[in-house]
């Protein structure tokens, strides 16, 4: 057997911790120093396993009578025919064994924009923030405020974004050794700008089409936008499992939405954050049709059933039982019926 064999010790996540090249067989694996591969795992035996070729010329890994044994996919066997794609667990040690002729996966397209680092995204973020800040302050500035008001608003928004991105840059630095502050600043700024944009767009759409739910359930899109921003921050900070991260963040966002709705429901008996659409826009925005006063009054009549259902008749008796008692004792009822 002239082929080289590579024995890789993996982390539970599948990253290679240590790789050893073997040129002769058989070899032994274990804690003792006379092994070819020495493990530092107290859950392995002194001589735990042996790697050899069987009569069919297959590479096999055999248990040398250890206490914890060799398992693959939680099944313990005395020996396994080695497969380069599989991981074998010896105690707490995960091993992957590949020969030199193992076919590696195809090269992955590099989607990372390596130019989009540093000053460029940082500046873009700052510009986005300034535009968003100025537009929103201007829209809300009904008393024709002074320049200082605008400056104060911008400084506070910018301060928040810088602080936020700073914390993420610190995480990135800790996990990947690379701060990527510019990118984090861009992600934060884009998130804020998108939130602002969404507020106006959703308001306009809901007013135009009379889709009240777009503004009355305002907090849920915000929660999901925040989850997306977190996703990009975490990806930038070195998360290697975007698939799992997506699921976690989606679950978190759904949980946030459910909590918000529960809170609203307990306080107001409505799931929405607001009772009604309070946005008013210029008449040109309107697309939905007008309703007549009669239609509106018919809708109002329908509410009666709803509120009557909500009415709780306390420990009080039903009206039908109570009424016959009343006139006998108190001549209130006869007089009232006269007035009617």
């Amino acid at each position: 057997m002239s082929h080289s064999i590579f024995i890789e010790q993996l982390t539970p996540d599948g990253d290679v911790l240590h790789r050893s090249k073997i040129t002769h067989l058989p070899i032994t694996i274990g804690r003792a120093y006379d092994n070819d591969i020495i493990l530092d795992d107290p859950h392995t035996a002194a001589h735990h396993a042996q790697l050899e070729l069987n009569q069919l010329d297959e590479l096999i890994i055999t248990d040398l009578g250890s206490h914890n044994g060799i398992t693959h996919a939680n099944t313990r066997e005395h020996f396994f025919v080695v497969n380069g794609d599989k991981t074998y667990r010896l105690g707490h040690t995960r091993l992957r064994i590949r020969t030199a002729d193992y076919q590696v996966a195809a090269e992955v397209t590099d989607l990372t924009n390596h130019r989009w680092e540093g000053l460029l995204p940082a500046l873009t973020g700052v510009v986005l923030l300034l535009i968003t800040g100025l537009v929103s302050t201007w829209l809300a500035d009904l008393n024709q405020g002074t320049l200082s008001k605008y400056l104060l608003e911008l400084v506070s928004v910018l301060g928040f974004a810088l602080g936020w991105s700073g914390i993420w840059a610190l995480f990135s630095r800790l996990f990947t050794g690379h701060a990527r502050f510019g990118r984090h600043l861009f992600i934060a700024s884009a998130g804020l700008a998108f939130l602002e944009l969404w507020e106006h767009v959703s308001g306009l759409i809901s007013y135009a089409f009379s889709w009240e739910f777009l503004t009355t359930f305002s907090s849920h899109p915000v929660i999901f936008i925040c989850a997306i921003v977190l996703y990009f921050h975490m990806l930038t900070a070195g998360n290697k499992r975007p698939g799992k991260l997506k699921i976690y963040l989606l679950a978190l966002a759904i949980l946030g939405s459910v909590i918000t709705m529960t809170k609203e429901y307990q306080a107001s008996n409505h799931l929405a954050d607001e009772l009604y659409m309070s946005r008013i826009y210029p008449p040109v925005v309107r697309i939905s049709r007008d309703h007549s006063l009669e239609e509106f009054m018919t809708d109002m009549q329908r509410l009666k059933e709803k509120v009557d259902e909500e009415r709780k008749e306390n420990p009080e008796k039903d009206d039908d039982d109570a009424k016959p008692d009343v006139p006998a004792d108190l001549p209130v009822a006869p007089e009232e019926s006269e007035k009617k």
Partner: protein
Amino acid sequence: MSFPYRLLTPALALAVSLSLPSLAETTPPLPSSAAQQLYASAQQDLLQLRVLLKNGNSQSSVGSGFLIGNSNLMVTNFHVVSQIALEPETYFGEYKDTSGKSGAIELLAVDVLHDLAIVRIDRAGSGFFKVPHATAGTAQPALVTLNQGQHLYSLGNPLDLGFTISEGTYNGISARGFSDQLMFTGPVNAGMSGGPNVTADGQVAGVNVAHRRDGELVSFLVPVRYVQALLARVTGDMKPPTDFKPIIGEQLLEHQAVMVDKLLEKPFSIKDLGPYRVPVRESEQVRCWGNTDSSAKKAYTIATINCSMEAAIFVSGEMQTGHISMHHKYAHNKKLNAMQFAQLATNMFSSQVYSTAKSDTITPAACTENFIKHNNISLRALVCAEAYHKFKELYDFTLITASTDDSEKSLQSMINIQGVSYSNGMKLINQFLQGIDRSSETDTEIKADPDNLINTNATDASDIELNNIDPNKNKPDPMEDAQ
């Protein structure tokens, strides 16, 4: 030589400080001999009434009352005993007389609209307070006639300090409510509620009920004729009703019918706000006032008209009903961009209506909203309805509208209706919506019309203080320790 002057200064200051209060208080005259005599003969039949928590025996509300003739019937205000009427499982009542003796009370009849109640106690009156009455359905005997300026005397136990008599004058009938109240210019303080008000010769003129917080000595009495009417319906040995809620509900339902009929007996009057026309109701019961904010510095002007009924019906501490108010706000753009003006309209339109799931009185709101077009105007309208848990057939309504036909002008209107039947609520809201319009001519700018609007400070029912003591409202809550 300077010595006498030094002495003189503090002496003068003392004299001034002593004499000033007596000089200032010219309105309540010094107690006359009439008051002395009245108190001496009335005190046996004058009582204090306490509402206590069954659990813990601590007091929840305190008022006054008086025994009628030689009977065991005591008259007081409904608001003094409302907790007993609505939550008999939690509260009970007790009387205390001027000599300190106390005993149990039993609620026999209530008149929520006039704020009266009759309770039975375990002793009889000496016959001082006479309210002649015949049985219900027959002609009632004549009662005392009052002349403006006549001296009247209110008795009761103000602020739980002790029994007092205060002197004042009769000043006619206030027609602000849907039923008459007598205006009494004299002190009626919290705790005197339910106490009698008598003429100099001892005839009952009315029952102390309320005073205006924003005025001086402006107090109100329930006319004795309502006491007479209520007394005609009870006897000293009758069996008290088991549950007062249906009785109160029926009285409220009857009242709202009268109230809405009166409000709608003629169509709403129409006022101009810019190019818009808005409905208002001005009558003895509903007062309107207007306001325009058009300072040159501002980028927009806002004109408002608010109309509100001054009287409301007290049902419990958490629930006043039988009240209607209307509000119109007209914003006109001067310097803002159309999107900024839209933001202003949004700010005005938002957070006006709420729904609560935590009230024991009303249900959460059920609402419907839409764009509507009628007459010459298109509107965004929202209407919410809430039902009363304890009183069938009674509802609260809120309607808010915002005009949607102009990017430079915004008319926003609101009507708040408390304690009416569903059909009456629909009727009022329909009439109100019908009244909102825009003048067809394309005129530029008409100022808010301040004619006929009373430019005083806004007053509404919340300024009228009922005269029983509710320690929960005034003190930092002594109940907490007891529980």
